[in-house]
């Protein structure tokens, strides 16, 4: 019996382990190895020296506190918005949900540029003097990540059984006390999961810090990028990569502790959203603030895309079928959009397949201590991609997968695989809390009625996981559409994705190219919003038929 369980576990885990070994461990160790091996000899001296530099300490400290503050801001703003968008009923909330996800999928470089447009001396927020300050970086990171909190926490909140809260209210708990003593503990797994993902995104964010921080403020991630591509100081980059990996492993262990809850079983029962009432004023006001924070840079971007030569015009959009001023691009922007969509479809099914298997493996209850330790180890292993920057991953792909036996440099699946790995932690973190929340007795009941493991999964898990699964698919698709760090290393010149094209346009001189970059960004954002909206609708309806 135990042997058979372990065999099943091993069988399920084998695929994801192999994929991660080839597409994650190999590239990253290749990249890190470059740092330790100098002229064919093992020489850790360079790495140790880098860790002692004052600049390294400064970069590290900045990364930690800016990411921490941005995470705090994202949680504080995202929590009320999750409540308003997932528990209250008012017209247009599905559209709002989709709109709030838009920032998350904007290419990081575009977010940086949009914030610059907003806060530079001539921008609408110019008088605040935020340009080039850490406040701008934290605002940018929050803008980027608040959607993660809203979505992950919102979906958990939506399907939270309202009755324990009602029991508490009847015992005399005010709405605030119900929230603190009943709702918050029930949301804790989702909240801790979302906060940890956001912290990791902030700590490994690259485009935002690069464009808003300039040379003065650098995070570990931008430092790795600068050391790798500008200074060609690979030992130093490797040292920082290792540091990042270790720090994030430590963080994940801590998060695992925090996440542990005395009884993870949660009744899933989607409550009817209700009309807003008077005590909802505070969360509604905060949601409006979030909307403003999210809308301001986007509006600036849209306005910018509609302006050329100080006049309102659609010229920037008409130029999207061309290759830009002075042949800035190899293919028109419209072609890049098609490539982006195809890539995103591939990345989505890969991330879902991989993430789904991983979630099932790590969420099952263990019968023995050994099994539990094995699952724990696998859980940690699968979360490792969180700890490594997209830049490291992309560069690692370049230097390790370009020669036999793994000569994948020209494979059309290389970019989707890399993007799927970037989206993987999100998929896993969306599915695992729901899967662990399912009472194991339901599976046992199905088994006792003659359902095999697959059938039991289809009967018990799938109906409950269906909606989070659709949400995860939307997330993965959106991440893939906006992914820039790894893609910029891997996309072939004649097959660029939309974010790569936008970056190329920004880098080329000429006002027309910049205008095109803005209009292309708007198209990318709109595409993503539509996809997410459709997925939301689809997810909602499918739940009704279950």
């Amino acid at each position: 019996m135990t042997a058979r369980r372990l065999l099943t576990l091993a069988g399920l885990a084998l695929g994801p382990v192999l994929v991660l070994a080839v597409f994650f461990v190999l590239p990253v160790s290749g990249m890190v190895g470059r740092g330790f091996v100098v002229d064919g000899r093992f020489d850790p001296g360079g790495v140790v020296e880098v860790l002692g530099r004052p600049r390294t300490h400064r970069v590290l400290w900045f990364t930690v506190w800016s990411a921490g503050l941005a995470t705090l801001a994202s949680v504080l703003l995202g929590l009320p918005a999750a409540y308003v968008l997932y528990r209250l009923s008012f017209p247009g909330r599905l559209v709002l949900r989709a709109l709030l996800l838009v920032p998350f999928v904007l290419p990081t470089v575009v977010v940086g540029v949009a914030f610059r447009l907003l806060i530079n001396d001539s921008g609408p927020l110019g008088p605040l003097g935020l340009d080039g300050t850490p406040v701008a970086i934290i605002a940018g990171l929050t803008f980027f990540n608040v959607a993660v909190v809203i979505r992950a926490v919102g979906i958990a909140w939506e399907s939270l059984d309202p009755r324990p809260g009602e029991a508490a209210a009847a015992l005399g708990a005010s709405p605030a006390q119900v929230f603190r003593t009943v709702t918050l503990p029930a949301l804790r797994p989702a909240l801790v999961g979302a906060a940890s993902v956001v912290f990791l995104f902030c700590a490994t964010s690259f485009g935002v810090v690069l464009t808003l921080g300039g040379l003065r403020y650098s995070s570990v991630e931008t430092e790795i990028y600068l050391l790798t591509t500008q200074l060609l100081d690979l030992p130093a980059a490797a040292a920082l990569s290792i540091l990042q990996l270790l720090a994030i492993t430590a963080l994940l262990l801590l998060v695992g502790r925090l996440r542990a809850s005395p009884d993870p079983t949660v009744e899933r029962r989607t409550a009817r959203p209700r009309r807003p009432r008077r005590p909802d004023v505070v969360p509604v006001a905060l949601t409006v603030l979030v909307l403003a924070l999210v809308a301001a840079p986007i509006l600036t971007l849209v306005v910018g895309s509609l302006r050329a030569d100080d006049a309102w015009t659609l010229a920037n959009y008409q130029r999207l079928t061309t290759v830009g001023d002075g042949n800035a691009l190899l293919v028109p922007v419209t072609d890049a959009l098609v490539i982006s969509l195809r890539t995103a479809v591939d990345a989505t099914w890969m991330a879902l397949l991989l993430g789904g298997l991983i979630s099932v493996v790590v969420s099952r209850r263990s019968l023995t201590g050994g099994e539990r330790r094995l699952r724990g180890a696998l859980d940690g292993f699968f979360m490792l991609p969180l700890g490594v920057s997209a830049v490291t991953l992309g560069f690692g792909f370049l230097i390790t997968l370009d020669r036999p036996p793994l000569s994948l440099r020209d494979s059309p699946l290389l970019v989707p695989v890399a993007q799927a790995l970037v989206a993987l932690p999100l998929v896993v973190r969306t599915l695992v809390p729901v899967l662990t929340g399912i009472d194991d007795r339901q599976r046992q009941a199905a088994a006792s009625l003659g359902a095999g493991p697959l059938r039991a999964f289809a009967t018990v898990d799938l109906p409950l996981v269906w909606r989070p699964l659709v949400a995860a698919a939307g997330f993965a698709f959106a991440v893939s559409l906006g992914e820039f760090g790894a893609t910029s290393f891997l996309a072939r010149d004649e097959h660029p994705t939309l974010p790569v094209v936008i970056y190329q346009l920004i880098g080329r001189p000429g006002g027309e190219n910049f205008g095109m970059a803005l209009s292309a960004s708007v198209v990318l954002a709109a595409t993503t919003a539509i996809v997410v909206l459709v997925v939301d609708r689809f997810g909602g309806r499918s739940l009704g038929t279950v």
Partner: protein
Amino acid sequence: MLRLADVSVAYDGISAVRHASLELPDGDVLAVLGPSGCGKSSLLRAVAGLEPLASGQIYVDSRPFSEVPTHRRGFALMFQDGQLFHHLTVARNIGYALRLRRTPGAAARVEELLELVGLEGYGDRLPATLSGGERQRVALARCLAVRPRLLLLDEPLSSLDTGLRQRLAADLRQILTQKRITALMVTHDHEEAFTVADRLAVMRAGEIVQQGPIDEVWRTPIDPETALFLGYARVLEGPAAGIVRDVCVGDSAEPPTQTSRTIPLAVRRSAFRVDADGGLRGRVTAARTTPEQVRLVVEVEGVGEVDAVAPLDQHPAVGEAVRLAVDVTRTAPVGG
């Protein structure tokens, strides 16, 4: 004293409760009895303040309560499956309301409540480790911790198995009377209602069709459906009721008038007893032995099929002719 005046509850314009009026004196236990989907849970939720009223008013000691938010009502609500807080231990679940109010001496009070519901020593356990009956005991203790002015019970025993349900119903009754707790319970189980409550309100299709002290409702059900729901086996109508009443005349002080003769008559299963001197003749169409008696179905001349019982030492076979006596205390006029 709780009073509901003309209370209606609607979900998206579809009414769940229509013009319900009730009175519940302090210290009494009222059971709202009705089939599932009759609106009784909506009524309870409205009293708890969890659903807004479409019309009408709820008074507690003559004070209007419909605008008072749930947590200021000073009630306590016990759900069918307890709804314990999974992340808290038994002791912390019970002490929840005490902590909200920062009541001194909470630990001692929790001990006292654990003893009251018969769960000494369970304080440190998590709800997941308890049986269904133990969870309901914890839920009850949690509700009683701050002496609610009204205890609301939503099918408190329905999720338990029969033996446990009967025992817990008796315990519940004892605790409620001992502590003089005013309680409103909704249930679909008439046995449960009879064990726990002093007063009864029968609800059907969103309306309260009958209410009063429990024995009064029991003796005079308002219509055939109510009678059947209260556990009467059959309702005899027209001439059949008359024939059965005629047989009772010998025992009864006053003979029925011609009009009261044909009022429908609700009969318990045990109202008809096999008796060699009985006034009704019939033929057995089904027989089944139970530990206490033999249960029969008898086709009675002029009356039709009725349920009847026989002592265990007599076991009439199917097709056998029998005579039946009527126990008038196990019948009730309907709508009278």
